[in-house]
């Protein structure tokens, strides 16, 4: 009974995420087509699409990770089904409000809504409060969800155990499963960044309703914005890794991975690095204290140590010369790790202050974060969707190879166009390009073409998975 309820809500999350993913990719393709001048939309439509595209992508892959973590967590502790449903309702309401403010209200301040741009109203006046209200709805739903999961973990594990600190002693009496450790580390990071978002929203509403008597500090607001935005975008990836640690060995028919002191140390450090790496978004704000800038570079570099030293290396070691039951799910995990580490190299390059000086806000930025999302984190979540729907919805997977090749060819093609664009100094977030950027239009057309190939892979996957998830949803309890 309990399992069926969790299967149903997880199926609902999967279908919703995939529908919104198709919408968000389509918006992305429209943007690239407009930049290539193969189609023409107004700059306002372009920037509205851009705002929806960014926020939707961050939102859906965050909730996809959360839904998967919630599902797997049921193996270890009892979680609240009611809170899971509450988070779903709040997410749907939040997305509808967001779409109302953007598609109808024409709000187009970008997904980072960098203060004070949302106050310079170039859209319907109701769109600004509606946009912020949509964020508040999403934030409350997600914060309650995270707090509920943390409280579930703490009912079973002590604080020392949940962070796996007992593994620092020679012979630990209890073992903290890697999934529990990583989920906890990620949830704490998410709660911290959501609290920063609460402060950001309170300050924003204070200024909005003060009618000019209270004005915020732009540098503080930018720090808060990226503390929230960077961290949540990073954490959704770590949620995906928690799933990988749990399922990769299981799907591959190999022994379950176990926590060691080394793993515990790496993940505890990861939390510190994640919470301080956001400074790299402010490198070009020279008034920011130099110490913070250098911390930004060191934290961004350091974040790759536990990631590469533990996760990536472990996956390589686990697979090397070992018979694995390869299926679509663990192939997606394996490819996702490859895409994640390659995107990570692009990120480390950009997180180097002297490189950022000539790459910041060029197409290099979407290049690297699309790499570790479209060919990294998304594949982790798709792997979970595949595993979950096959296990509980039955039926054989069709077109597996086709899906993989379409995602790979499409992904590599549209990302290459971004990287070359970054090297050509082409600005990001331009609805159209000045003529002097000779390669910009061609690269945009190339990007749109390959993004369409990627989309067709997602559509094939979507049809297969949705059928099974619908079957689970319609099963009698």
């Amino acid at each position, binding site marked *: 009974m309990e399992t069926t309820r969790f299967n149903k809500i997880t199926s609902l999350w999967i279908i919703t995420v995939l529908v919104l993913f198709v919408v968000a990719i389509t918006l992305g393709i429209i943007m690239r087509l407009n930049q290539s001048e193969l189609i023409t939309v107004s700059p306002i439509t372009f*920037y509205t699409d851009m705002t929806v595209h960014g926020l939707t992508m961050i939102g859906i892959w965050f909730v996809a990770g959360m839904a998967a973590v919630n599902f797997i967590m049921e193996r270890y502790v009892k979680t609240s089904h009611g809170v899971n449903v509450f988070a779903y309702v709040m997410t749907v309401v939040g997305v509808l409000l967001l779409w109302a403010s953007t598609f109808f209200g024409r709000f187009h301040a970008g997904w980072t809504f960098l203060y004070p741009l949302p106050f310079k109203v170039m859209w319907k006046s109701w769109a600004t409060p509606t946009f912020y209200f949509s964020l508040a709805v999403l934030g409350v739903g997600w914060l309650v969800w995270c707090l509920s999961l943390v409280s579930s973990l703490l009912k079973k594990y002590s604080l020392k155990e949940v962070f796996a600190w007992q593994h620092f002693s020679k012979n630990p009496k209890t073992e903290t499963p890697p999934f529990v450790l990583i989920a906890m580390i990620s949830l704490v990071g998410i709660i911290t960044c959501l609290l920063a978002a609460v402060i950001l929203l309170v300050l924003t509403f204070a200024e909005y309703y003060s009618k000019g008597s209270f004005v915020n500090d732009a540098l503080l607001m930018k720090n808060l914005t990226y503390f929230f935005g960077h961290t949540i975008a990073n954490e959704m990836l770590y949620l995906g890794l928690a799933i990988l640690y749990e399922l990769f060995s299981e799907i591959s028919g190999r022994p379950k991975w176990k926590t060691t002191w080394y793993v515990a140390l790496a993940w505890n450090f990861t939390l510190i690095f994640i919470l301080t790496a956001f400074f790299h978004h402010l490198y070009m*704000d020279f008034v920011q204290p130099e110490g913070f800038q250098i911390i930004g*570079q060191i934290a961004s570099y350091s974040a790759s140590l536990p990631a590469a030293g533990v996760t990536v290396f*472990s996956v390589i*070691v686990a697979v090397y010369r070992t018979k694995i039951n390869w299926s679509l799910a663990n192939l997606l995990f394996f490819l996702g790790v490859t895409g994640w580490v390659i995107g990570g190299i692009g990120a480390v390059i950009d997180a180097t202050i002297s490189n950022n000086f000539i790459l910041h806000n060029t197409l290099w930025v979407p290049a690297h974060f699309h790499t570790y999302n479209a060919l990294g984190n998304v594949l982790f979540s798709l792997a979970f969707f595949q595993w979950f729907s096959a296990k509980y919805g039955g039926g054989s997977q069709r077109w597996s190879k086709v899906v993989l090749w379409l995602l790979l060819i499409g992904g590599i093609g549209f990302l290459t166009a971004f990287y070359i664009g970054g*090297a050509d100094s082409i600005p990001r977030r*331009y609805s159209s390009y000045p003529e002097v950027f000779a390669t910009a239009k061609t690269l945009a057309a190339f990007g749109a073409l390959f993004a369409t190939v990627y989309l067709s892979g997602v559509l094939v996957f979507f049809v297969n998975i949705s059928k099974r998830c619908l079957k689970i949803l319609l099963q009698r309890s």
Partner: protein
Amino acid sequence: MQYSILMLFFVLAALLVGIFLYVFLSSRQSNGQLTGMANALQKRFWFVLILFSILAIFASVTIPKSPYFLFSGEQPSKVVYVAARQFYYVMSYQAIDPASPTGESSIELNTNELVEFRVTSLDVNHGFAIYSPHNELIAQTQAMPGYVNRLRWKFSEPGLYTVYCLEYCGMAHQAMKTTITVK
């Protein structure tokens, strides 16, 4: 410079693809062997140490080249004040009054003279990105309301430089630009 970075990235990406492909093929050809570690999460301190050393070398070489330290021991021979607003720049050799911002019709600078750009914004966040006559991004800073970012630069080549806004600032962001002449 950007193309050297791109090449470095492509080489490292190709190397990683090669490693992952090799590992994947080794699994496919394993014929039932189970030589992978039973628990893949075992310590491998040497790997982290090598990675740490490489990153530490990179950091120690690149951090001193950060723009905050550029020409920090020298006195600028010219100061250019920049006030950005939706969707244009005001530039002047004198400080700009935010109440009635006025600037020069054109900014002319000399090669190899140290210039300090004092960049602020009168409304939202903007970018101040200098592109060479060959349309290559060579230097940038942000224009933030309430703050002044100081960017020091020496132009080595004469020509017409274009300044683009690289921080999204609204519906005409893509059209926000100005020029600087270097003699």
